[in-house]
């Protein structure tokens, strides 16, 4: 019997190929070298958010961070605002990462200390953060980011956007190593699989989750910095819809919504699939509505498929046992 996660990865690879075929059928412009660069332009922001969501989900609870997009918007505005006040941009970015961590810590406090269900707690901070982002700016973007800063998201190295090289790939590799080779990673899976057993074997489950919510905030700040470099301006609605998309990507990538199961490699494949679909539909000039519908169907379908596969495996195990 094959490991279900490996099966999942194969399934995702198949889906990615299918998405590519669908893309080339939809639009004659799709199968060009330039498409890859174009596609990779979109991957990092969504990708790091998906990874953050995966981490929060993995540790169980059940964990979810609905405020991730709002955090991203707010941090972007904070960085642009600080720069406007005369703070050097790189320092402002560092402060932004700290702010992201603090916003994540508010979630962590609500969920891990006050034990508010994560769905509710982060829904409340989603309201608060996205509201703040709108209220503080009156709804208008903050611009004035210098040209040179654009190199992070607009520059290319070997045809691949620089933020792929310096943010997305290192983060993906780093998190993968953390999850699969370190004690911390093993603890995350333990906490997600069986909270009680993990606690009894000495894992401080709630402190672990606290760390992950903070980390999710910091990663959202990274996404904010990349977006800032890409658009040279901070928009108060920059992260709108990202919370749902990041959940979609994490779940599609095989992360179990109640924790304990999932891999970063799955998330990476999932973000590639989602962006391929988006870009293909865009190139084919198909209305935004279909993009939304496609994501919705993908989300529900992937969980259904997951459940069905799980059922089959369990049934097989039962037959083998009897």
């Amino acid at each position: 019997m094959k490991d279900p996660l490996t099966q999942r990865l194969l399934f995702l690879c198949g889906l990615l190929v299918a998405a590519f075929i669908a893309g080339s059928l939809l639009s004659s412009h799709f199968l060009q070298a330039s498409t890859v660069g174009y596609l990779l332009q979109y991957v990092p922001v969504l990708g790091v958010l998906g990874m953050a969501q995966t981490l929060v989900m993995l540790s169980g609870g059940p964990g979810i961070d609905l405020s991730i997009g709002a955090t991203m918007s707010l941090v972007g505005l904070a960085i642009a605002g600080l720069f406007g006040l005369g703070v050097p941009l790189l320092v402002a970015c560092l402060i932004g990462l700290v702010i992201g961590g603090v916003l994540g810590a508010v979630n962590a406090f609500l969920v891990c200390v006050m034990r508010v269900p994560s769905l509710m707690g982060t829904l409340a901070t989603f309201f608060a953060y996205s509201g703040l982002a709108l209220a503080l700016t009156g709804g208008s973007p903050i611009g004035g980011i210098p040209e040179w800063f654009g190199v992070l998201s607009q520059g290319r190295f070997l045809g691949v956007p620089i933020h792929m090289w310096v943010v997305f790939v290192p983060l993906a590799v780093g998190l993968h190593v953390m999850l699969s080779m370190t004690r911390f990673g093993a603890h995350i899976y333990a906490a997600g699989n069986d909270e009680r057993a993990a606690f009894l074997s000495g894992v401080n489950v709630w402190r672990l989750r606290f760390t992950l919510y903070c980390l999710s905030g910091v990663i959202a700040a990274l996404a904010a910095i990349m977006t800032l470099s890409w658009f040279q301006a901070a928009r108060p609605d920059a992260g709108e819809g990202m919370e749902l998309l990041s959940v979609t990507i994490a779940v599609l990538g095989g992360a179990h919504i109640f924790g304990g199961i999932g891999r970063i490699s799955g998330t990476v494949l999932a973000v590639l699939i989602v962006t391929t679909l988006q870009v293909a539909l865009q190139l084919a000039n198909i209305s935004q509505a279909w993009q939304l519908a496609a994501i919705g169907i993908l989300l529900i379908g992937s969980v259904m498929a997951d459940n069905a596969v799980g059922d089959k495996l369990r049934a097989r195990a039962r037959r083998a046992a009897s």
Partner: protein
Amino acid sequence: MLAALALLCVVFASQSEFFLSERNFTTILRNSVDLAVICAGMTIVIILGGIDVSVGGIVAVSAVLIGRAYQLGMPDWVVVPVGLAAGALLGALNGAIISKSRVPPIVATLGTMYIYIAVLFLVIGGVWISGLPNTLSFLVLGDAFGVPSGVFVIGAVYVFSWLLLRWTPWGQRVVAIGCDEVAARLNGIRVDRTKIQAYALLGVFAGIAAILYVARLRNVEVNIGTNIALEAIAATILGGANIRGGVGSLIGTLMGVVFIKMTQNGLVLIGVSSLWETVVIGALLIIVLILDSLETRRTS
């Protein structure tokens, strides 16, 4: 919750003399009718242990179908059932996905939200539907015996829901499932069927809200329903329902709705930009959640 409402009234009344006027209360009432109706259904679904973040999408699809039906020149007695049926159908679809394929409710309704919004865009085509007839406006804007008609609409929906929840076997099944789904199943309750029915009921209420929305504003916007789900969940939780299921109160929810709408209205009256609304609601929600968990910790 009553104390919080009273406090809110005092704060706003001291800042704006218009706040306590009869006309302003009628305005608040008129603005709350659609949310209040949805929240009755949301309370039942949350008591059941579920959640529905796609209600905004259901309202949007129902409203746009109502708008199109009106544009085709159909009379009220066709249009109203169309809106209700659309709501019931979409709600039942949510329930079916959740119960038959065991996708967690938040994920399933997140997915259907995308799909419903896509349907909205495809039907509406990016342009407002406006200039709809006002034959149903009396439901929201009119009054009977000197009492605004919204009172009767809200009253009817809440009395119906309360009777359903507290005095019928169906209501007991809902609470039982919310308390312990496995135990309910083992006791012979048809969990799947009850779930589908509950989500369908919420869908019907969303359909009613769509009718009220169209009756009040006589147009259908492109971004209709974007905030409804979050506001409805916030109101229900503020009203004392437990997100883990099994516990909830319709009266509490109604107060939660009044609380949210009064805050929105009061902030505008005292001259705070409406952009701060969400911040205030979010902050309030955080405070209530913290108080809630402190309370639970003390009693347990």
